[in-house]
């Protein structure tokens, strides 16, 4: 067993993959907690998928596809936010449209690109096993920026997430903060989807935060616990995928999903045996 674990560490790609998993988990634990409490998982999914349009355009016109993806995901994030907040259109409809159209644009442009074809699957499920060392530093930088922004605006983000109307009348700039949050989601999703694939990004944004929300009653603790759970899931998933020779991204998601279901069951059993205690007023 111990020898098996040591074996894994002798490969540089496994060491990098494990480090990438840890770094991704920090960003996803923090941003994911906001995504879950603000109920914008679907918006995050829309942002992630429409980013694929930017990747296709980047390949076609010969510029760095990551830049295309960031521009596309920011544009889609802000337009979804605008539709949700300032119009009476149905938000979920717009998200569905942008989700599908973004992906279709990406595929058509990649079809038309001569020569090297990127594999759609590698963007969906990523390739955490091929993360270069330089990218790890970029991810560390992303974590640092997210931590700094969230620390700086923590009290406003909390007030906005809990009760936006109340925060607004206390003159908190909720529109600016909300777009900042969407922007952080967009950049996080794009940076991380190169590394682990966009399905895994959505899984890591949602599942650790959702489990965490079942057990802790404070947003800060929720972020910390979600980050640790993400680390646990990526590490465990990577080892399992190595030993069982499975696709790494999908294995990590299945590990996370299994724990989510177990946690939800356990939480249900506990709360149904001891119903929420309410003291009479």
């Amino acid at each position, binding site marked *: 067993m111990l020898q098996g674990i040591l074996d894994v560490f002798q490969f540089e790609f496994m060491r990098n993959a494990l480090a990438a998993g840890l770094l991704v988990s920090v960003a996803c634990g923090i941003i994911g907690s906001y995504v879950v409490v603000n109920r914008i998982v679907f918006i995050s999914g829309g942002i992630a998928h429409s980013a694929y349009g930017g990747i296709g355009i980047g390949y076609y016109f010969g510029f760095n596809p990551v830049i295309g993806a960031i521009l596309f995901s920011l544009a889609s994030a802000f337009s979804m936010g605008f539709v949700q907040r300032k119009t*009476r259109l149905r938000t979920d409809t717009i998200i569905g449209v942008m989700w599908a159209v973004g992906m279709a644009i990406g595929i058509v442009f990649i079809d038309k690109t001569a020569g090297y074809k990127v594999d759609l699957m590698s963007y969906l499920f990523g390739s955490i096993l091929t993360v270069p060392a330089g990218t790890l530093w970029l991810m560390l930088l992303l974590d640092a920026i997210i931590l700094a922004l969230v620390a700086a*605006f923590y009290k406003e983000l909390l007030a906005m997430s809990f009760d936006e*109307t109340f925060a607004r*009348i*206390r*003159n908190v700039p909720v529109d600016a903060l909300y777009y900042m949050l969407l922007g952080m989601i967009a950049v996080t999703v794009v940076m991380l989807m190169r590394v682990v694939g966009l399905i895994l990004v959505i899984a890591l944004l949602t599942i650790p935060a959702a489990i965490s929300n079942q057990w*802790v*009653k404070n947003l800060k603790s929720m972020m910390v616990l979600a980050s640790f759970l993400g680390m646990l899931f990526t590490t465990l998933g990577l080892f399992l995928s190595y030993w069982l020779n499975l696709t790494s991204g999908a294995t990590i998601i299945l590990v996370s999903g299994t724990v989510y279901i177990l946690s939800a069951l356990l939480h249900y059993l506990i709360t149904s045996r001891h119903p929420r205690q309410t003291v*009479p007023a």
Partner: protein
Amino acid sequence: MNGKGLITDRTEVIRIEHLWAGYDHDPVIEDINFIVNQGDFIGLIGPNGGGKSTLLKVILGIVPPLRGQITILGKSVKEARQQIGYMPQSVEYDLDFPVKVWDVVRMGRVGKRGLLRPYTRQDDEIVEEAIHQVDMDDLCHKSISDLSGGQRQRVYIARALAARPDILLLDEPTASVDVQVSQSIYELLAKLNEQMTIILISHDMTAISTHVKSIGCINRRLIYHGEKQVTPDMLEAAYQCPVDLIAHGLPHRVYRYHADEEV
């Protein structure tokens, strides 16, 4: 009339003149004239969709007026709303939100500190005092999801108080609680009314009529005489809401000729 000093030396805190407001240029409330004086405790009733919430949102600066003037404490809404404490309807909250009573009440301080400034010890003292005022000291480290409906209402009142407001606005403060809890909330509000002006809206006329100092009725237009009587023109304007009132009787109702009472 009756020596209550209706026309008054009291300070005016809210002045609304010929106000029209609504959504997409479609007015929900029309030609509202409304003067609130310091120390008032006003209950606004009216049918659902009659514009109660819209009027509250105009006072809070969430819905801009289509026409007309509104000044609060002599200032514009955006400047003055820092001095307004607001308690929204509690149905709007997510009960699984990971937050404790103390943190919710402290949100009342959020606008008092600028961006990038942390809360101070003074904020903590004010939060503690607000929690004490609503009698929630023992529960201040509980998660909001562990509270009963009435306790949660108290927490939201405390959050409004933590802003140290001059005016308190409440949207259906007793919508989802039983009669006893509702009674205790009105007792709390009566005590708070010694220090601040209170306006609340409710569709439950019988509950508020025994507790407030004056009643207005809003159904597109506002009828408010600064008195506690429910007048025939209110009944006419809000034909839906007073049906209950007549059926069950109301201890304070005085129907009288009042053509000379128009303010």
